[in-house]
């Protein structure tokens, strides 16, 4: 395979889940909007929500579709890469302030209507605006965690696989797992919340950055707890390939060991499995993220007060609990829950789909079966290996 294609393909795989999850939503919304054809006349709140959906979800995906059809891979991948960044950075710009204000005249939660696609909460605030805000924070956290997992996980794996003392470093990293992630993250976040508050009080950070800073801290924490599976995979890969003839041949022909490990093993032979594992771990990170979001909003006193906003917090309001317990105002529970569950399923299914895709192509090329197959099963592995 061409080198640049391999590299860009690697990046595309990392951001595949967003496409899997958001494309159907974006396309449906755009189609509905087109069919209705009278965007602005539906009032400022809906128009704001619709504009935001169109800008954040639809436009990049339409462009991605065009780019893929015209085989402009770099453009397509750049757009996919930009998507979470757009959601993260531009969210507050494309969702105008009025979306956050209660709909005047609304005294109770309103059912979904053309005016409010996902209904409103008891204060009359548009659920769509709330969901997009929650998604924004969630994806910042997942992206940060993924970056930590990839950078530190691969580096740690290489150190472990290459140096004898590396296994001690890995043992230290793995010891973090002994304290369950949710326990550890609660402690980290308690410390972080006080420091962020302090920095804010002293004027060292601007008020508008505090939300991003908090998401970043949560992302770094979750990533740190999930580093060791990635490190184990890379270390196993290096241990496996160091016994292979072609690696011996490379070393004996004078190729530096660091190049052999980074290029021939990690880049040429491990990236597919790294991508698959990264997708799985991203799903797990999202699961932890929503769990933390839930815990923060119900934690007593200062711990949860305003520290961290997540999609999951939409499910912790008294209204949402009432919605599920008494089947009253169902949209308050169903809409956020569907967003959360579909995103997590999207990640974990995408990881497996990706594995199947890579296995099929590698089997067609007659490559060796993936080491990941021996670590993590799937039904397709046998057919691909023996096919």
């Amino acid at each position, binding site marked *: 395979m061409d080198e640049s294609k391999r590299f860009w393909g690697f990046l595309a795989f990392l951001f595949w889940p967003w496409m899997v999850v958001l494309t159907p939503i974006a396309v449906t919304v755009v189609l509905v909007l087109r069919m209705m054809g009278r965007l602005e006349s539906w009032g400022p709140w809906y128009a704001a929500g619709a504009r935001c959906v169109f800008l954040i979800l639809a436009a990049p995906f339409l462009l991605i579709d065009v780019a893929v059809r015209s085989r402009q891979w770099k453009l397509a991948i750049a757009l996919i890469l930009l998507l979470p960044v757009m959601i993260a950075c531009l969210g507050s710009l494309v969702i105008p302030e009025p979306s956050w204000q209660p709909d005047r005249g609304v005294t109770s939660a309103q059912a979904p209507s053309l005016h409010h696609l996902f209904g409103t909460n008891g204060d009359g605030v548009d659920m769509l605006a709330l969901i997009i805000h929650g998604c924004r924070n969630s994806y910042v956290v997942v992206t940060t965690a993924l970056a930590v997992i990839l950078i530190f996980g691969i580096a740690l794996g290489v150190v472990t696989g290459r140096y004898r003392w590396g296994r001690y470093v890995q043992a230290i990293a793995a*010891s973090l*797992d*002994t*304290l*369950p*992630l*949710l*326990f550890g993250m*609660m*402690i*980290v976040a*308690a*410390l972080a919340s*006080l*420091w962020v*508050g*302090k920095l804010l*009080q002293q004027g060292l950070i601007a008020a508008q950055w505090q939300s991003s800073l908090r998401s970043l801290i949560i992302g770094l924490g979750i990533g740190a707890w999930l580093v060791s599976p990635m490190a184990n995979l890379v270390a196993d890969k290096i241990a496996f390939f160091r016994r292979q003839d072609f690696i011996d041949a490379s070393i004996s022909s004078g190729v530096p060991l660091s190049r052999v490990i980074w290029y021939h093993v990690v880049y040429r032979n491990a990236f597919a499995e790294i991508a698959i594992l990264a997708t799985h771990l991203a*799903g*797990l990170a999202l*699961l932890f993220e*929503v*769990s933390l979001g*839930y*815990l923060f909003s*119900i*934690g*007593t*006193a*200062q*711990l949860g007060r305003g520290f961290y906003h997540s999609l*999951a917090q939409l*499910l*912790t309001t008294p209204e949402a*609990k009432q919605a*599920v*317990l008494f*089947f009253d105002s169902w949209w308050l*529970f169903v809409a956020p*829950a569907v967003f*959360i*569950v579909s995103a*997590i*399923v999207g990640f*974990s*299914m995408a990881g497996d789909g990706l594995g199947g895709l890579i296995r099929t192509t590698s089997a067609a090329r007659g490559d060796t079966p993936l080491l990941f*197959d*021996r670590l*993590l*099963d*799937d*039904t397709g*592995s*046998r057919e691909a290996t023996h096919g």
Partner: protein
Amino acid sequence: MRFVTSLLRFVAIDGVLVTATLILAITFAVHLVFALMPAPVSEQYVVEVAGLEDTTAVGSVEEQLRAAFERDAFALWIGHDRDGRADVTARLLGQAMREDAERLTDRRTEGVVDTPDVIASYGDWLGSVLRFDLGTSRSGLSLVDELKEKAPLTFKLSLAAYLAAIFAAASIALTRAFRPRDRIVQIGHYSTYLITALPAFVLGYVFIAVFHLDVSERPGLLLAIITLTFSSGILNEVERVIHHQLSEELRANYIKTARSKGLSSRAVLPVPGAVAFHAFRQAAVQFLPRLAQRVPMVVGMAILVEKVFVLPGLGDMLIDGLAYRDEPRVLAVVLIAILIVRLCELLTRGGKLLLDPRALSAGG
């Protein structure tokens, strides 16, 4: 004799030495975190001494304040209302103490942390732990008593859910390995993706709604265990790992021999006389260490489930401890959480050693 020696070595090294090292490292890190915490002295925390009839603290208010001040000089906490009606009932004892508190706050804010103090106070805590005394929480209750009341619940919940998840996953994996084309098994396999993706609180609320459970009056421990089994995030992975190892074993030559000798290759249950028994036993040697790595996830998710079903467990203690900056309480929770995780891990690894005596002879 050799078996006993190896077993003792496993218990001594893995059970005691490694666990002790982990406890030392992690609790010291948590202690350091508390030392680095900036003080929360600000308008919202500081309430002037007045109107003390609200307090639920044990002993006289003066005593409580003094004791609290000695423990943590920058903030005074005299108990709290769990329902959040008056969640901050901190009071500062006089202007002199306020000045002291602010001076200390400034020192901490500037990052001046006395290292000897940190180490000495950690040493004190460690000494008291060795005497089986975890100290008292800010509200004056003995932490050992509180843990005796709350830790068993988390342990029961985690262990039951962990075993149930492995049982469910193994059932699906076994059936899938022997009946790969069975529609129901396929549906079971794919439904593990969906179930695993359901956060515990979503599933918990659905269960509470469906079974009309009034959690404030009748805590649903069984429903909590079922919720944690499904939504601890391990079901899907465990199922795939077990299925993969089983498939590997079923292709091995000894299984062909067993089949040719007339052992049942249709029976799904791993009972003696069936191929499944031998394949599962060998596969377990491979997959048990991987299952042991998943224990912390279950224990972690247990605090979520406890919150949903309003069960008084470690999660409750941790959140309260953090919210009121009650260091002894947080350290006690961390200590017990590590012990629970290590115990479950060791049980899993012990299971592997029993199945595979070679590993025991090799020293675990």
